[in-house]
């Protein structure tokens, strides 16, 4: 055991994969949800520790796994949100068992799947082989399909089925794109594994066949774009968020969308490094803006609280894709910052929404009123989260949105007008709805919230801190990554 631990401390890269994989097996065998929930928290905490070690010492790039400045941002973020979500999940699950919505057998499955999902996401983020990356994204998709359908209600099954079908189509298109990239690389790099290694591909990017890369990028964009939730490929996202357990909604929005985006960014870098291939930017900018404006308007018609925040995720993924599509150091920096802030804020909102739905016994917004009256801490927490996600100062999202808008105004004023319009439409809808939910005479359940507020408020505190003051080392680090992205 001690040699095993010593091995772990030496190799944080293996640890972030082995800890979730091992815990998945353990949690599948462990009866009793109380203990399993604690073990789940412990496993994600260890993963977080290993991920933080990656910041200090970085292993040599291998043919299957590697860590560089770009993916370490994603790994740390995903380990952190994975950890706080597991803390939230422990209290959430207790209530679901108490009202008999989930049985202990379901929970064993749930906890094991949670760790499999963490494993798949870490594998996708650290993969240096584009085939392996695809396998990891597929595994993450299948895991979340099973989690979304866990309640076995009409709506949950519909959501899981829709997610499965659309996710598989997206993943299939992405595989076709991956095969085309291999075809482009084969004459240059040679047959076999080497032609699928990302670090080898980016080195030889100029000499790859530009025509094949163009076609490949269309497939990769549509394929991984489906998983990012870009309109018009987003149809699975609101259902999957609304019908699954809330911790899964938090992980989906906060992490899984980022993993798909990361895959997209890797291929964007590859295509951009080839001077003869089509510029990947305009396609990303277009899909990003369409998602933003579309989701902004759709927000007004939502009646289900989780569905509303799912549309808000589509909106923000649109903004992030737009920023990375614009490219350049400033827009990339803003995109990275926005992605981080969105992950933290959106998962915090889902933590709050999960407790709200439990105490009120409903997800319908028309039946939730006066939350700040009946549950002051929870209500104000939700209000703070929504104010943050709507992009008001002084919170972190305001800053990243401001950077995106100002850098766009300097380069493409017309696009910036559309961007600002979309942002205003979306924040208007969010403020309108949160006003109805949070203020006025209280309705619905008034039961006490038996939950820890630590995950919710620690996320909000981070978002506030980032809005007021970003530490210089963090800025320098993000700037390095932004330059890397081109």
């Amino acid at each position, binding site marked *: 055991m001690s040699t095993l631990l010593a091995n772990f401390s030496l190799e944080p890269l293996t640890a972030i994969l082995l800890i979730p994989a091992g815990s998945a097996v353990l949690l599948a065998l462990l009866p009793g949800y109380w203990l399993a929930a604690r073990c789940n928290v412990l496993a994600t905490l260890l993963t977080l520790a290993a991920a933080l070690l990656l910041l200090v010492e970085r292993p040599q790039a291998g043919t299957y796994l590697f860590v560089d400045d770009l993916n370490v941002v994603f790994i740390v973020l995903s380990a952190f949100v994975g950890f706080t979500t597991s803390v939230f999940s422990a209290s959430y699950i207790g209530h679901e068992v108490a009202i008999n919505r989930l049985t202990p057998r379901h929970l064993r499955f749930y906890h094991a799947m949670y760790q499999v999902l963490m494993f798949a996401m870490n594998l996708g983020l650290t993969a240096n082989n584009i085939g392996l990356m695809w396998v990891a994204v597929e595994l993450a998709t*299948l895991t979340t*399909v099973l989690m979304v359908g866990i309640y076995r209600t009409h709506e949950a099954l519909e959501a899981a089925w829709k997610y*499965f079908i659309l996710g598989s189509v997206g993943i299939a298109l992405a595989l076709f794109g991956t095969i085309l990239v291999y*075809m482009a690389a084969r004459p240059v790099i040679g047959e076999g*594994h080497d032609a699928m290694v990302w670090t080898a591909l980016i080195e030889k990017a100029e000499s790859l066949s530009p025509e094949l890369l163009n076609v490949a990028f269309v497939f990769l964009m549509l394929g991984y774009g489906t998983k990012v939730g870009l309109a018009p490929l987003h149809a699975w996202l609101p259902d999957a968020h609304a019908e699954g357990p809330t911790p899964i909604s938090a992980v989906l929005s906060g992490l899984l969308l980022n993993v798909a985006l990361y895959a997209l960014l890797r291929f964007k870098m590859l295509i951009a490094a080839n001077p003869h291939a089509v510029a990947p930017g305009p396609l990303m900018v277009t899909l990003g803006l369409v998602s933003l404006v579309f989701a902004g308007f759709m927000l007004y018609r939502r009646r289900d609280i989780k569905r509303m925040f799912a549309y808000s995720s589509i909106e923000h993924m649109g903004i992030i894709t737009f920023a990375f599509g614009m490219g350049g150091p400033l827009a990339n920096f803003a995109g990275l910052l926005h992605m981080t802030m969105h992950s933290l804020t959106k998962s915090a909102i889902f933590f709050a929404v999960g407790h709200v739905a439990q105490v009120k016994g409903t997800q319908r917004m028309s039946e939730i009123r006066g939350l700040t009256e009946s549950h002051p801490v929870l209500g104000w927490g939700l209000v703070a989260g929504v104010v943050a996600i709507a992009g008001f100062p002084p919170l972190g999202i305001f800053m990243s949105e401001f950077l995106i808008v100002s850098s766009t105004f300097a380069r493409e004023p017309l696009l910036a007008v559309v961007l600002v319009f979309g942002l205003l439409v979306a924040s208007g809808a969010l403020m309108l709805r949160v006003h109805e939910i949070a203020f006025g005479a209280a309705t619905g359940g008034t039961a006490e919230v038996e939950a820890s507020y630590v995950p919710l408020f620690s996320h909000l505190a981070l978002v506030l801190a980032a809005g007021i003051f970003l530490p210089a080392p963090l800025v320098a680090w993000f700037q390095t990554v932004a330059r890397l992205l081109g």
Partner: protein
Amino acid sequence: MERNFLDIAHMLAGGLVLTSFMLLYQDRMYGLLNVFALHAVVLSASVAWQAYIQGAPHLYVTAAIALVLKAIVIPVALHRVVARLGIHRTIETVVGIGPTMLAGMGLVALSMVVMLKATATADPLAREDLAFALSVVLLGLMMMVTRRNAVSQVVGFMSMENGLILAATGAKGMPLVVEISVAFSVLVAFVVIGVFLFRIRERFDSVDSQTLDDFRGERR
């Protein structure tokens, strides 16, 4: 000799496209499953031929997986599901057979134009194989869109995966990892679907996914 090798490879890949068209006009459940089994047999032959001409023995494994799993196990299992649920009669389509076939031809033409142009420099074996593979993928995609029934959507999805395997084997020397994982993912997918089919039956007494649409959260 080389010339014949290519011709046979193209004939088999073209046969797969043809079988995809046959899937499109099936209006009975058992017919659909039988044609899907044929689809898998053609794929298996095509992959085996690629294994032979590329001198890549590991591709025989992929061919065997396609033959055993997709041509025998899955169709038989789906036959049973269909028989047990009593849904063997006609399949409801969203768009009529005629327009679907026309759209299918359009898709094949599109993929030929796109792929042959993009792969002008690649070797002729991979070139046409990729074009055929893309046709099969697009036809499978269209089948998923134009059918309402859950079982035919699954068949559409699997025919799409067949197209991907054709593309992966056509790409000479593509690492085995990916091929196995593709086959494996189909297996996993099937398990998932199996679970869902039975659950859906429990809840709705139908496997028509139209029924599911009525439960959209917005209309509550």
